[in-house]
């Protein structure tokens, strides 16, 4: 037994009010003995909060689950409740929802690419250090994020926890002039997004091809965002209402957050899955950017997710510009939705992956039961599997190098603990 063959990496999380993340890695005789990602997630509290509430409340209540992807929660909540009530929002109102969602993708992806993920590839401890050395690059990232926020400000009412979304549509819809006022900003942002793809494509990517099943929405047309049917890389698909039959959550001893399996198999959701199942659906400029960046039709290297995110920002901007170009103010800001007893299911593509909501309503519109399955929960097992693979193939690294690579591996998934990961302390124990 060598000195190095038994080691423990304990990455203990800084206590955060909204959640905690920690990583525990143990190797024995050079073999990976245990990898545990420990996340404490608040969403379960929300499921309990929702019981007994009025059916119009979930978009506002669930938007509070995440400050970075509130639109995703609002959209999945709306779809699920509208499904329960037998309503489908189409036409210009759906286009507006898609536009709002584009804003969130742009803003969320830009933050992750520039301030959270890129420093890993360039050897900087954080985004601030990156900004000191590459000021114009970080300024470009902030400008991109701001462009996304502008969409959310206008369509959502404000960028943080938008207040303009309601079951059936919106409280107020923007005028044509207001919407067209975004065009100049978004055209510049598209330019910045293409530069972003070029920038991240030149990074060095550790070798890792994951065998997990990939699951993402796929719609009858377009890249999946606000609706679609769950598709799996094995070629299978199932209706949204059968999500609970295929995705089973289970408890693990080391985490209060539920893990999930897809038909009893390891799977992942998010940009890699979305891209690999829908690369033929990218808009022309985004498709070209993907090719230029060296992405094939399928991408199974999680470290390249930063490239996929950059391509998705290009897509979101092209899509937003297209929606803006053809925008005509809807006659009414929403369609009427009357409550009825039953179940409703909604799935949309949050920036981090597929987000599922299910509600049971009574005839008066009171919520009897709620179930929310966020993407980070679904990805936990895949993250642990990736960390295991990375530790196994990088035993030669010292603890500092290995810890950095493990944290980078976790950040590939843009989990909600990303920002805390920069503050983690390492404790090393030797057997």
């Amino acid at each position, binding site marked *: 037994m060598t000195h190095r063959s038994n080691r423990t990496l304990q990455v203990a999380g800084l206590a*955060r*009010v909204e959640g905690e993340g920690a990583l525990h890695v143990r190797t024995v005789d050079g073999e990976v003995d245990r990898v545990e990602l420990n996340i404490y997630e608040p969403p379960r509290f929300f499921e309990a909060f929702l019981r007994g509430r009025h059916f119009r409340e979930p978009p506002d209540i669930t938007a509070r689950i995440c400050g970075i992807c509130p639109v995703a929660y609002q959209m999945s909540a709306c779809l699920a409740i509208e499904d329960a009530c037998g309503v489908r929002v189409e036409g210009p109102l759906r286009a507006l929802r898609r536009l709002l969602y584009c804003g969130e993708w742009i803003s969320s992806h830009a*933050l992750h690419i520039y301030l959270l993920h890129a420093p890993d590839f360039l050897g900087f401890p954080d985004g601030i250090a990156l900004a000191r050395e590459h000021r114009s690059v*970080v300024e470009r990232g*902030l400008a991109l994020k701001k462009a996304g926020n502008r969409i959310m400000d206008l369509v959502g009412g404000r*960028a*943080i926890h938008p207040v303009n979304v309601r079951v059936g549509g919106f409280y107020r819809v923007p005028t044509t002039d207001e919407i067209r006022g975004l065009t100049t900003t978004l055209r510049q942002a598209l330019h910045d997004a293409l530069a972003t793809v070029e920038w991240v494509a030149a990074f060095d990517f550790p070798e890792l091809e994951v065998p997990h099943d990939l699951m993402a929405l796929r719609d009858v047309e377009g890249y999946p965002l606000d609706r679609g049917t769950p598709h799996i890389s094995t070629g299978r698909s199932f209706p949204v209402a059968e999500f609970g039959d295929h995705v089973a959550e289970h408890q693990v001893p080391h985490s209060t957050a539920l893990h999930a399996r897809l038909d009893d198999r390891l799977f992942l959701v998010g940009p890699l899955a979305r891209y690999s199942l829908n690369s033929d659906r990218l808009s022309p400029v985004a498709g070209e950017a993907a090719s230029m960046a060296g992405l094939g039709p399928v991408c199974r290297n999680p470290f390249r997710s930063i490239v996929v995110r950059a391509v998705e920002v290009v897509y979101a901007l092209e899509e937003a510009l297209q929606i803006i170009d053809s925008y005509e103010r809807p006659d009414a800001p929403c369609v009427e939705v009357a409550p009825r007893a039953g179940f409703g299911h909604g799935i949309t593509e949050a920036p981090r992956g597929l987000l599922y909501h299910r509600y049971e309503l009574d005839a008066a519109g009171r919520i009897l039961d709620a179930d929310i399955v966020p993407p980070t929960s679904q990805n936990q097992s895949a993250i642990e599997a990736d960390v295991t693979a990375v530790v196994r193939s990088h035993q030669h690294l010292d603890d500092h190098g290995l810890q950095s690579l493990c944290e980078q591996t976790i950040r590939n998934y843009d989990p909600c603990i990303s920002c805390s990961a920069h503050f983690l302390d390492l404790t090393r124990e030797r057997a």
Partner: protein
Amino acid sequence: MTAVVIGVGNEFRRDDGIGPAVARAVAESGVHAEISDGDPARLLEAWDGADLVVIVDAIRCTPAVPGRWHRTTLPHSIPAASSHGLGVPEAVELAEALDRRPEHLVIYAVEVADVGFGIGLSPAVAAAAATLTSAVLTEVAEEFPGTDKISNS
């Protein structure tokens, strides 16, 4: 010359809502005010173009005197009770790296008692909101003599 008051915090985490509460109060006096979750990129956007930035945020101290507040221009030593991993100190650092730190940056940090789930300030922190609002309004008025109020634009 423009000023902005930024209330940092989460109104659904009890006393963490003191920043937003003060921001709302000063806005009623016509001062440009914003509410922020403390995300550095958004803070930079919020103070973009402002000559004077006044940030009001909650801090947790041990032991704490809930409601006691501190005025500082050096945020680095202040442990913010932001509900996010990145907060005001990181925003200031990022702004310095990008040469976007405002000319005048003042932080009001309020000692808090309870940042658990729920709405509403604890009595001691709620009692401090009025004097804090006056202090912030005075700060803005002194920086811009001759005007009682700053236009909300």
